[in-house]
């Protein structure tokens, strides 16, 4: 009993030490490989962005007390190859399309996500999308955000099997102006 317990302790401590060293090696070598691939300067082409602004009246679209809330949806073309983000320590890559814009003076910075995709295989990492529709209907913290100029970018987050999570963005952006509310009389100006 006594020696069996000691043996078990010895073996388990060896196993734990080995596991720590192996995961450290896996994580560090994968970062080295990513930096050798210059993973922070991958290009992306965002084009033919069409935005639509509508008024929504339900809580699920940000409205409160049945007040009209402007919601925006987009359709876009996207060409990007992010297969360089994949190696032996990549569990998934979360890619997302963000829009950054200024609000009123009291709201200096806003950033919203229009579209996202979870990629778990390197074979799926070549994105060639046409007329892809946004994943969400987006509203602002204010009631209205039409006629604001936004900058669209493709960003990513690498989820490893073990180790540190990494964030970054692709080079290339698209300037978009949120349109007037669809069907409103002032849209013709």
């Amino acid at each position, binding site marked *: 009993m006594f020696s069996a*317990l000691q043996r078990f302790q010895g073996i388990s401590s060896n196993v734990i030490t080995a596991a720590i060293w192996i995961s450290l090696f896996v994580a560090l070598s994968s970062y080295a490989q990513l930096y050798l691939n210059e993973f922070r300067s991958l290009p992306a082409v965002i084009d033919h962005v069409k935005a639509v602004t509508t008024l929504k009246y339900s809580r699920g679209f940000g409205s409160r007390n049945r007040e009209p809330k402007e919601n925006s949806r987009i359709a876009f073309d996207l060409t990007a190859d992010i297969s360089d983000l994949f190696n032996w320590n990549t569990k998934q890559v979360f890619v997302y399309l963000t829009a950054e814009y200024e609000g009123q003076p009291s709201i200096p910075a806003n*950033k*919203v996500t229009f579209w996202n995709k979870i990629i778990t295989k390197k074979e799926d990492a070549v994105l060639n999308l046409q007329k892809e529709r946004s994943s969400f209907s*987006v509203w602002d913290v204010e009631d209205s955000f039409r006629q604001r100029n936004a900058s669209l970018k493709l960003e990513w987050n690498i989820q490893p099997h073990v180790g540190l999570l990494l964030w970054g963005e692709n080079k290339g952006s698209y300037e978009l102006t949120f349109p007037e509310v669809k069907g409103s009389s002032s849209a013709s100006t």
Partner: protein
Amino acid sequence: MNLRQQLIQGLNIAMVVCSAFMFWKGLALVTGSSSPIVVVLSGSMEPAFQRGDILFLWNRNQYVDVGDIVVYNIKEKEIPIVHRVMREHKVIPEVKTKKRSARSKKPVHEPGKVRQLLLTKGDNNPTDDLPLYAYGQTYLDREDDIVGKVMGYIPKLGYVTILITENVYFKYALLGLLGLSTLLQKE
């Protein structure tokens, strides 16, 4: 076994408990987060995080970014939630002249100082977290609600804590084993 040996053993156990507590509080001090290591309890972030995965948090940045995975607390709900930030709005709150009612539990925000409002979503959930927030809450507040941003990841190792908290038999078996081993141990 004499009394002196038993006392030394008791002292050893107290040392282990104390050093674990010191390590935990030291880590909280360094990371700026009240709970720097968390175990994932739900599948709402799959396939990134599964139940039992261990996450390491960091809370020393002034703002969090869109795309960051954060741990947040909701008032009057006990379990912290791990989800991804989908939107951020930096807002300068107005100076309120209206008198606040004494019953209001909302934290008082300094006027003129930028506050960051966040909307989160679980990767595996179809919609954003609005239904999870407190009644009437439309955004999270960076300073009030966020426990930390997820920086590091170890898979599966935290499943022991889920077993201990959710399985009574496992808990007693583990406690019994620990007690037995301390009784049988000899220098």
